[in-house]
């Protein structure tokens, strides 16, 4: 759906050149929610804006549905932008226009609907984002969550194939954030819309993303399926972001005190619901202590991650334990 190939982006500033993006390669499939996470200044915003060419790459190419859009300009560029919706952290609505006029704006720009069809489409998208009752109000009198719903309605008016979200929930409180994220997921499922979002918080990513890329200093340092990146974070930035959000267990075995083996187990899907550990413990007649644990959900996948410590007298049965874990599709790492 979206393919970014070897893209560099360099800004020329008064003090010299600043390279915001280095050799970015990215593939976003149709219908998925792709999350890009990184600290501020990592280049997320530049990367997102490449997709609708609000920023032009200094080198490399950008494809949308196999069309090379890198050098589009004028009318073809405007047509492309009408196919790519975007919502912003600060909503960027017109304060001088009512909610419905704001949503009608992209339809007027596109000029392919009659006035009555435009009105019908506006009502339709307002309904979709559940804000029809505010249609005649001005954005100034709406709450942040409502404004973002208007932003989403405006972005969807022209039936785009892609929706870009630029820190779309960063200005919202946690509860509103969740409701906006749920709305995005609903839209993603109902319309099969491809969503690319950037954020600096893991909580957003874990709620909505199917795949994720971690950006640091203008480079993608890690990317893959949400669950893999979360549970097997390799890069230090990813790990730092994860532990800041208190999601995944700390990788170090610092909590362990004894001299026995320390194991980290990771499992996902249905395994989480079965009383696996107690069963293995009973079958092998083994005892162990749980040093650290986190159990939860990543988007729709339940996962668990535990750090176990074995006492010395359990050493003889260590191999059996590993075999039992393997046969139950639990991934493990021997930390000590």
């Amino acid at each position: 759906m979206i393919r970014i190939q070897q893209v560099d982006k360099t800004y020329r500033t008064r003090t010299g050149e600043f390279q915001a993006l280095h050799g970015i390669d990215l593939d976003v499939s149709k219908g998925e929610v792709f999350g890009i996470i990184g600290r501020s200044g990592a280049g997320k915003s530049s990367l997102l804006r490449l997709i609708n060419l609000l920023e032009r790459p200094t080198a490399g190419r950008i494809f949308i549905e196999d069309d090379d859009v890198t050098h589009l300009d004028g009318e073809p560029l405007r047509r492309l932008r009408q196919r790519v919706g975007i919502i912003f952290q600060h909503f960027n609505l017109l304060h001088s226009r009512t909610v419905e006029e704001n949503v009608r704006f992209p339809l007027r720009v596109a000029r392919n609907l009659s006035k009555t069809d435009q009105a019908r489409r506006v009502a339709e998208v307002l309904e979709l984002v559940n804000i029809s009752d505010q249609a005649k109000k001005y954005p100034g009198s709406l709450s942040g969550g409502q404004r973002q719903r208007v932003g989403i309605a405006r972005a969807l008016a022209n039936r785009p194939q892609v929706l870009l979200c630029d820190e779309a929930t960063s200005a919202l409180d946690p509860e509103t954030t969740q409701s906006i994220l749920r709305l995005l997921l609903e839209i993603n499922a109902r319309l099969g819309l491809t969503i690319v979002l950037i954020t600096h918080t893991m909580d957003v990513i874990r709620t909505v993303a199917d795949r994720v890329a971690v950006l640091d200093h203008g480079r993608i340092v890690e990317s893959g399926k949400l669950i893999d990146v979360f549970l097997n974070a390799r890069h230090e930035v990813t790990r730092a972001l994860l532990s800041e959000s208190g999601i995944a267990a700390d990788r170090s075995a610092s909590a362990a005190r004894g001299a026995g083996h320390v194991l980290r187990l990771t499992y996902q899907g249905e395994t989480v619901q079965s009383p696996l550990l107690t069963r293995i413990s009973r079958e092998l007649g083994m005892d162990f202590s749980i040093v650290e644990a986190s159990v939860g959900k990543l988007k729709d996948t339940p996962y668990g991650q535990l750090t176990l410590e074995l006492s010395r007298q359990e050493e003889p049965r260590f191999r059996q334990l590993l075999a039992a874990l393997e046969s139950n599709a639990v991934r493990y790492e021997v930390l000590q």
Partner: protein
Amino acid sequence: MLDLLHGAWAAVMDFDYWSEIGTGTLDTLIMSGLSLLFTVLIGLPVGTVLFLTGWGHRSPRPGVAAVQAWTYRIVSFVVNVLRSVPFLILLILLIPATRWLVGTSLGVQGAIPPLVIAAAPFFARLVENLLREVDGGVLEACRAMGATTRQTVFWALIPEAFSGLLAAITVTAIALVGYSAMSGVIGGGGLGDLAVRYGYQRFNTPVMIVTVAILVVLVQFIQWAGDRCVARLSHR
């Protein structure tokens, strides 16, 4: 106290200049009103051009950016030159141009071209600054929706700046009332003309006081009306 009131009333009744003052007021209103209209018609596009070619709105394409930069430099220079000439000097300098344009350099007609030429650059700068105040995010959103520059200007930029524009129009209208009085010096007509002819040249203080009083009321009224419009149209 009663004597004082009585005396004032007698003075008002004895005052023979009411009809001239009536005409003068009307002339001032016509001069200021018409020149305000032309000032806005010229200043709004010029201010918009200054905004669109100014810093922060330069195209990423070097050729286009160069055209923008030169347009900005030239327009900005002309605006600065016109703003730096004192109005009285501008009035005199423009006499030949005014004659050519409206056939006379005197009266209400003769006052309008110099008024417009003095006020339009001022208003254009106000417009430029107001447009810069418009939230850049809104303009980025327009760009992201595929809007053309024209659509962005007419559907987003000007509507977003509208209440500010009304305030700027109010400021300009008041400046024009003041300037139009000044044009009385070279025979421009209106209240300024009266004040100069009677008050200054014939030492008729009552006429001067009445003229000034009317100007004060006029300015107060314009400001009040402008503020009300701004308040009604603001949706922040």
